[in-house]
């Protein structure tokens, strides 16, 4: 009897200490602004993301200066005038996947994820609830989400001169191919 309990305990502990943290350091965050005068895209391929599958806690962070634009002038205006990258170098999203218990990471499939969290851009923090998708395939966990960010919510001032070139609602797309955190 004692041995059975010991074996059982060992099995349970091993299961509990099994991999619960997933990680990437080359997640993709892109944003797209569609305005009458111009469409603007900026891409960041080096986002860091961590997902704790036990608690559903998920955290994204990016350096604003790793957003790449096609036009040098736009990149400069973005960093210097709008998001003020020197003062606020990082943007973060600290959230929780509230329906984590319905997502079976041991089974391949595509699961809707309800996300609730705090987004910090330009030093301003807002609560947002974007919807996402978790795709499980061969042990890899992919996170995808698309949502709207309004520059004015984060006290990002867009001067009237360029108002026709920058949308009031920016579409943000997030893609993260997460792998079990090693070491």
């Amino acid at each position, binding site marked *: 009897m004692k041995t059975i309990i010991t074996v059982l305990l060992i099995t349970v502990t091993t299961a509990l200490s099994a991999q619960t943290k997933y990680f990437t350091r080359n997640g993709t965050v892109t944003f797209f602004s569609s305005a009458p005068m111009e469409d603007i895209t900026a891409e960041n391929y080096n986002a*860091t993301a961590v997902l704790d599958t036990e608690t559903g806690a998920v955290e994204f962070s990016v350096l604003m200066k790793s957003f790449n634009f096609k036009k040098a002038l736009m990149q400069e205006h973005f960093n210097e005038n709008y998001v003020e990258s020197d003062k606020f170098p990082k943007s973060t999203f600290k959230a929780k996947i509230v329906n984590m218990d319905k997502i079976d990471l041991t089974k391949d499939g595509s699961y809707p994820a309800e996300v609730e969290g705090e987004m910090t851009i330009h030093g301003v923090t807002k609560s947002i609830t974007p919807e996402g998708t978790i795709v499980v395939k061969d042990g890899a966990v992919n996170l995808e989400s698309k949502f709207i960010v309004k520059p004015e919510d984060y006290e990002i001032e867009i001067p009237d001169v360029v108002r026709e070139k920058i949308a009031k609602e920016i579409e943000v797309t997030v893609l993260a191919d997460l792998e079990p955190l090693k070491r």
Partner: protein
Amino acid sequence: MKKSILIILALVLVAGAAIGYYMYNKPVETLESQDAAAEISATALFSEFSENETEAMANYEGKVLAIEGSLIEKMENSDGSTTLILDGGDPIFGVKCRLDPSVDGEAIPAKGEPVRLKGLCIGMNADVEMNQCIIL
């Protein structure tokens, strides 16, 4: 006389508009023609950032650096570009270098090999980050 002034004025306007258009649409330049402001090893850069981020930001952020280190990870990004992780002396984090999309894949050394590159230091986000990197 009046006509020639008008023609000159028109030419100046056209030239001005052309320059404006060119400046507005100018693509982000590669770092090919820029000299590195400093030369440092990946381990030294990482330890300076982990010891005092504020000071390291003041010293290196926004500067083109030539760095050297051991390549510990090679990642393909969703746009097909490559990001390299150079050993920073920490078990998990290091110096994360996104290569300029113009870099030839053949020029990238194998994992474990030493690598020397030039890139723009943009700060620290767990890893120290470098952008627009070119293999030297």
